[in-house]
């Protein structure tokens, strides 16, 4: 089972979409995708959006990857916003009691426009 990672430049930063299963096998790919985006945005960017609507499964290695992304964002003054959590992602966030740790939005348009 693979994870598909796509990223695009949006107004204020980057939007990454993940699709598939994020587990110990595929988390390194997600980490690689994040590193690519931080490299592309070296000159500075304001916001990183991660769309999780197509994630069928996420385990603690996926959560660890998201926490790492948050730490990288904090270090660079980038605002991290998670978008449209799929039900399995919502379940694992609930188990990890992480809902309060991340900024989470139901859609990209809301994530992009809310101050």
């Amino acid at each position, binding site marked *: 089972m693979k994870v598909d990672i796509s990223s695009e430049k949006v107004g204020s930063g980057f939007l990454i979409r993940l699709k598939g299963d994020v587990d*110990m*096998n595929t988390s390194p790919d997600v980490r690689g995708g994040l590193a690519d985006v931080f490299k592309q945005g070296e000159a500075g960017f304001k916001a990183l959006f991660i769309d999780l609507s197509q994630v069928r499964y996420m*385990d603690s290695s996926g*959560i*660890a990857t998201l*926490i790492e992304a948050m730490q990288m964002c904090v270090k660079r003054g980038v605002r991290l916003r998670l978008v449209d959590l799929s039900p*399995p992602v919502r*379940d694992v966030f609930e*188990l*990890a009691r992480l809902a309060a740790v991340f900024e989470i939005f139901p859609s990209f348009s809301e994530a992009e426009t809310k101050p």
Partner: protein
Amino acid sequence: MPGTVTLSVPSHPKYLYVIRSTLYPLVLDAGFSKKEASKIILAVDEASSNIIKYAYEGDHTKTITLTVTVDAGRIAIRLEDSGKQVDVSTIAPRKLDEVRPGGLGTHFMGTVFDTVEYDTTRGTGTVLTLVKEKK
């Protein structure tokens, strides 16, 4: 009908998906809801990941054996490895209010299962038994 299913896979993370695929119909057939099933499967995935990381220290050529037994009212999942044994009292989740990568797997196991029992009394390896009763 009580029934036992055994699955052995190499200790490579790509087989985590195979473990999940095998477990899903078994857990549903045991009478758990889809939501409970996904939590049970998550916790077993974490236990299997820990075997790869800690018992086998990243060696992907060893074997993980899962034995799933469904009786009226409960599911028991035994995970067996032949890797490094540790003092099981040191296996512990992190506090959830420290936000850092890692330390969640054992927390998930403890939250999802009624019994989480590590046995290192055999000469080699560890047997982890996870049991969940139907409420």
